């Protein structure tokens, strides 16, 4: 059983705003990386696209469908990723993951931005996967890339298939 207070802490205005008016939702024509993640249990789909430039995330965008938690997390994450180096993006993922798994200190970390609105998910164990879906797409997208490789890959892929 979830508890009323936890549910009320999660379904707040900021989360609903990201769910209903997602930021960075839509295709990214110049994307260097496109990753699709599915949650086979619930049918949620999320496609994350990153435009990388000189080892930084220039743009991040997503498409897909799912619950308020997974969609708001994707919206908040893409907002937070812009301008971050790959290492910073992966560090953000670590902070977010710690927060979702109940780390109170991570929940106070202002570098998480709007993502902090999801801290209450730590008390809804069955929804942890929803909250982490966008970040697992990010992890997949950045797998094996460090700052230098990302630049090189981006250059290699220029002019090839979208």
């Amino acid at each position, binding site marked *: *059983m979830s508890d009323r207070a936890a549910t009320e802490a999660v379904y707040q205005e900021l989360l609903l705003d990201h769910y209903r008016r997602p930021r960075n939702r839509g295709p990214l024509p110049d994307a260097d990386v496109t990753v699709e993640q599915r949650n086979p249990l*619930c049918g949620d789909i999320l496609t994350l696209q990153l435009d990388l430039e000189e080892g930084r995330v220039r743009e991040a965008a997503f498409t897909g469908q799912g*619950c*308020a938690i997974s969609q708001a997390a994707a919206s908040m994450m893409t907002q937070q990723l812009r301008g971050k180096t790959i290492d910073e993006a992966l560090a953000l993922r670590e902070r977010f993951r710690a927060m979702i798994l109940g780390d109170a200190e991570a929940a106070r970390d202002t570098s998480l931005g709007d993502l902090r609105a999801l801290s209450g998910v730590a008390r809804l164990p069955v929804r942890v996967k929803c909250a982490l879906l966008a970040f697992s797409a990010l992890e997949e997208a950045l797998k094996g890339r460090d700052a230098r490789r990302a630049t090189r890959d981006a250059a290699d892929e220029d002019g090839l298939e979208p």
Partner: protein
Amino acid sequence: MTALAPRSDFPLLARQPALRYLDSAATAQKPTAMLDAERAFYENHYANPHRGAYALSARATDAYHAARARIARFVGLADAECLIFTRGTTESLNLVAATWGRTHVSAGDEIVLTALEHHANFVPWQQLALERNAVLRIVEPTTSGEIDVQRVLETVGSRTRVVAFTHVSNALGSITPVAALVAELRRRTDALLVCDGAQGAPHLPVDFDALGVDCYASSAHKLGGPMGIGALLARRAILEAMPPYQTGGDMIEFVHDERSTWNVLPHKFEAGTPNAAGAVGFAAAVQYLDALGMDRVRAHEQALVAEASERIAALDGARVYGPPAERRSGVVSFTLGDVHPHDLATILDDARLCIRAGHHCAQPLMRRLGVAATARASFWVYNDRDDIDALIGALERARSLFGLAGV
């Protein structure tokens, strides 16, 4: 509207009086009578059936076969040896696709199934079609989410080898008019008629011999029996003509070095040590249901579904899927504004309401309905009006949490 069966018959519900269990279409709670029967088998008659040359093993064998006969009687199968114990509906359907399917479906043949099917009655046929280069033909549902007899007949052709359809849609609760459909199909085709009864046997009186299908699959756990056991009912001539599904102990007649011959029905399809305790529990569950009366089970669920559907549909922004309540089994599938069903399930869980949210293992149907997910409340013998009151109250709270109050 009081429950048809008291909560006190179900230990889990008795111990958790605040729990509102509305997910019986996924799996049903267990009556004491079933739990006691399984325990008594282990405590009093337990040995490996069929093998031992001693009295205890003979008693275990008797209990196993008595269970088979009891379940056969419940589902209207006169020839009890044509009831094959399996792990459940999924295995029963895979068994038919793998044995009958592989020997009778060739390149260019057609397999007809409906878009209402659970993945368990969809994917085995889809994979068989891919393997045999056969053609999969999907019957579109009506706008109300039902199987239309005429549409099935129009899809069946001279190369149709299998027609597979569900008795009751697990996602919407739509009831297929099986007897009428089969009567029409028999006039046009000699295809194998396979019915997925996972949501049929727990909710409707089932008379296999009268339904006229060739194969009927069901699971014990959805009707109060244990997990991990189910049944395939089929006509004798079909089972005798089918090759075995798995090989090993119990299912053989004689093993030569180079080849083997098969045991008689039902053993031919029951390789390995059987789940005799599961069968005993399964039989106790159907006995419990027979005592309640399946006509009364049906009437009780219909009353709950009618009231719940009406009250949910009356909420602003709510949409109930599927046909009118009288043509539905114990399921109410719905959405509420832009509240995603998973979020709804979390909010309802606060009130100790258990519902299912998602695609219900029926993605082809969900695509056709144009929704990725619905919320599904399902009812059984222990549910009552209090459950519906709690459901409506929790849905109102979800509306308010999502700021839909004034919509």
